[in-house]
């Protein structure tokens, strides 16, 4: 029973948490200090100057500019100092290192679907190695969500229609809460699970075993399949053509548009140019490309973006086998196979978006828990 369990701080399990906590505790100290000043001051004055007490009330003061300036400027300076430390922390949280390993997250009512770079997928559980910077690229398939790991002190909105990022380096092996922290509908409170921070060796093993009997397809490979399936290659080949520019090696390069503006080609730009190509027409081309808004799933888009990032540089061979997670989801949705996984990860049947979404690992089913509560 947890009636007498009063934890005072969440676990501190990431590099960001290590930077975060000193700033937080400094603010706590400052708050306690000023709260004491006000409480003690108010009570002291209320007692000392209670009507009828013998206190010196001569020469009462009603205006005093130096005093006013004192309690204007001191809070202002303290505020600016806090702003500085808060902002420094914020910039660190918002700036993922270049060498971070990328993991992709799709939020939907009411589950997290997570895809590792080599194609291993899991639902509501995120496995990460300790000691290595991890960058999550996230998008929502429906409403707003927020990806929140209290033990890592990181949180970021997951928004439909655009990618958001979140990064951390886990520092302690263990299992931590994963919450959706943006109200998203009926089962909002059950959209979550856990983050499993593992020793890098265990993680590597987990990752290579994650595929079970089926060889996982890397995201680039899956993207190449999508590229071929929707016939991007009809226009976007190895060389610029009359109809379309080549996409080879564009990632990270500056793109100049018909209206004279320009942008660096990042994940967000590539996605936008697929779903809404006319927002940024590359200089020299017309409005000839089909609009893919609503035509491709977010997962297809993630894979496609991953492929376009490497197209022409480290072009992977299109997979020869048809047997892979994407086209043969049933291979992993058999109950006995799922339970044979080396971890608690639930393998998602992502081709069926209506597949029972909310499942917290190790938790009783929703109805059962609610019923248990009612019987108490």
């Amino acid at each position, binding site marked *: 029973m947890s009636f007498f369990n009063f934890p005072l701080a969440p676990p501190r399990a990431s590099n960001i948490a290590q930077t975060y906590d000193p*700033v937080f505790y400094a*603010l706590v100290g400052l708050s306690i200090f000023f709260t004491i000043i006000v409480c003690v001051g*108010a009570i002291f004055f209320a007692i000392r100057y209670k*009507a009828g007490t013998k206190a010196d*009330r001569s020469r009462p003061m009603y205006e005093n500019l130096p005093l*006013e300036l004192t309690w204007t400027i001191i809070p202002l300076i303290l505020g600016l100092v806090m702003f500085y430390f808060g902002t420094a922390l914020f910039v*660190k949280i918002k700036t993922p290192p270049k060498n971070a390993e990328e993991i992709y997250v799709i939020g939907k009512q009411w589950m997290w679907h997570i895809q590792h770079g080599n194609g291993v997928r899991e639902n509501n559980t995120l496995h990460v190695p300790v000691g290595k910077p991890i960058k999550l690229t996230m998008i929502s398939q429906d409403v707003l969500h927020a990806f929140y790991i209290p033990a890592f002190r990181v949180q970021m909105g997951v928004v439909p229609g655009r990618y958001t990022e979140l990064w951390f380096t886990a520092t302690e092996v263990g299992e931590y809460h994963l*919450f959706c922290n*943006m109200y998203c509908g009926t089962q909002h409170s059950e959209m979550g699970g856990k983050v499993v921070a593992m020793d890098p060796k265990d993680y590597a093993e987990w990752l290579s075993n994650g595929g079970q009997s089926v060889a996982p397809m890397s995201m680039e490979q899956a993207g190449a399949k999508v590229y071929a399936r929707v016939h991007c290659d009809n226009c976007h080949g190895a060389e610029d053509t009359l109809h379309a520019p080549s996409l080879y090696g564009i990632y990270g390069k500056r793109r100049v548009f018909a209206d004279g503006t320009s942008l660096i080609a990042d994940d967000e730009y590539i996605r936008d140019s697929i779903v809404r190509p006319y927002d940024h027409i590359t200089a020299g081309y017309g409005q000839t490309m089909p609009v893919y808004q609503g035509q491709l799933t977010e997962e297809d888009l993630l894979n496609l973006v991953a492929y376009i990032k490497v197209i022409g540089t480290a072009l992977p061979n299109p997979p020869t086998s048809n047997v892979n997670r994407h086209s043969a989801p049933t291979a992993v949705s058999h109950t006995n196979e799922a339970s044979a996984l080396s971890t608690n990860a639930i393998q998602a049947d992502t081709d069926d978006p209506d597949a029972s979404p909310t499942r917290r690992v190790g938790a009783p089913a929703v109805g059962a828990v609610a019923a248990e509560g009612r019987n108490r």
Partner: protein
Amino acid sequence: MSSTVIPSGELQPHVDETNYLNVSHTISSWLLTGDHKRIALLYLVSTSFFFFLGSVAAGLIRYELTSPAGVVLESDTYNKVFSSHGILMVFTFLVVAIPAIFGNFLVPLMIGARDLAFPRLNLASWYMYMTGGTLILAGMVFGGVDTGWTFYTPYSSMYSNGQVTMVIIGIFIAGFSTITTGINFVVTIHKMRAPGMTWFRLPLFIWAMYATSLMMILATPVVAITLLLVVYERTFKLPIFSPELGGDPVLFQHLFWFYSHPAVYIMILPAFAVISELIANFSRKRIFGYHFVAFSSLAIAGLGFLVWGHHMFVSSQSMYESIVFSLISFLVAVPSAIKIFNWMATMYKGNIRLQSPMIYAIAFLMIFTVGGLTGLFLGAAGTDIHLTATYFVVAHFHYVMVGGTMLAFLGALHYWWPKMTGRMFADGIARVNAVIVFIGFNLTFFPQFIVGWLGMPRRYHYYYFAPEFQAYHIMSTLGASVLGLGFILPAFYLTKSLFTGEKASANPWGAHGLEWETSSPPPTSNFLETPIVMDEVYDFDPVSDHAEDLRRIAEEQQRKLNDSNRPSEDHN
């Protein structure tokens, strides 16, 4: 300390026993009244009703959270209950209560006017409020809303199945009540001050009410339009916020918080208004730094419009935007700090009466300080990342909204009750009640800071996967029971005072201000003759007041001594 000179004849307020309450008794004389005092009472009754409903929802939420897997509600119902709690408390109570009840009652009285500038507009605003409130309630009864009071898109515009449209239209209409009240106050304060009532002789209540009115006029139309856009997208699939249709979901948050952050100040500035009055009058001392307190209200009103982005540090707005919003948020903290320190300096060398309104004011000082300081955790973009949308935020804004606005509301209700009703209540029980509220409040909301810091998200129905949160939730629910008692008791002893309370004199607290110069309750025209203001605001003299106090205490002791010297007579 007589501040008024009646130009002709002598002041004899008690000759005529007619006042605004007993001038007529028909229902239509209330429902069609143009008298700002009667409209204030209409608001008092109606906002109390909505507050009661919002509190019932709060009680249900607290009860449900005592168990990690819920107690009686389904998740869908729970979501509708917390949404109802937020919508009722924000849109039908907090935004409305102090301006529409005490502002309505006091703005004309304090500046020496006979009524507000537009009495019929004032009555119309009450009808708009009631229409809006009725629609909101109807929406909650016939289907409910599960969007939270924030109506974030695209959930509210494309996914939620409840009566979102009806509730939004209710809020839209109630919003116009706020706008018209604001216009009425601004015009009245500009044009209808009594002779001699210069700007810097205005009570600070009026200054803060003026700043509030400006925000109401400028901010409310924005939320009205924004919510209407949600309705358009829901009904006509107009592409504005939903990415599926080609809209931008984050745009909604910008528009919504452009109103709703100023709305926070619309809720707290009237509380500042009340506290300035209480501290000055119960310390029998002119407020310290009058100009700083007055202009800090305007500074808050101005800067309050430029900080909305601090609600959106994790929303995907740009990092640089967030940094700018964070900086301005720290700047807006300064005027609030100025007020706190000036109130404390006012108590220094005062003659403090610890009657119930003053106890509420002191409780406000302590609680609002915690509410303000914890805001710094959320204004600093870095620390906000972990805390945003957790119970830390819930605790923070309840410290500001309940510990701030609600305590000020109770203080105001006790302070002006004799003026509004003409009856005194039992101050002893009222003082005890203030302490009950203070304890209950802190027991309810302080544990929520800790559980939020641990990572408990707000708007969660279940937390069976994190049982370590339970102890704090149980504490919080215990506190809510105490707090509930603190809200129920005044309903009884104040109502009782209407029937058995002794009649209030014109100035039962010994306060300073034009509203205390007319009879309690005031006549319909407020003042029998137009007052002329000759002296400064809060014109107390602590030294002579102290001499007065000593004489009074000596007299009381003498009387007690006399009583005890003749004991035998009583027994015969």
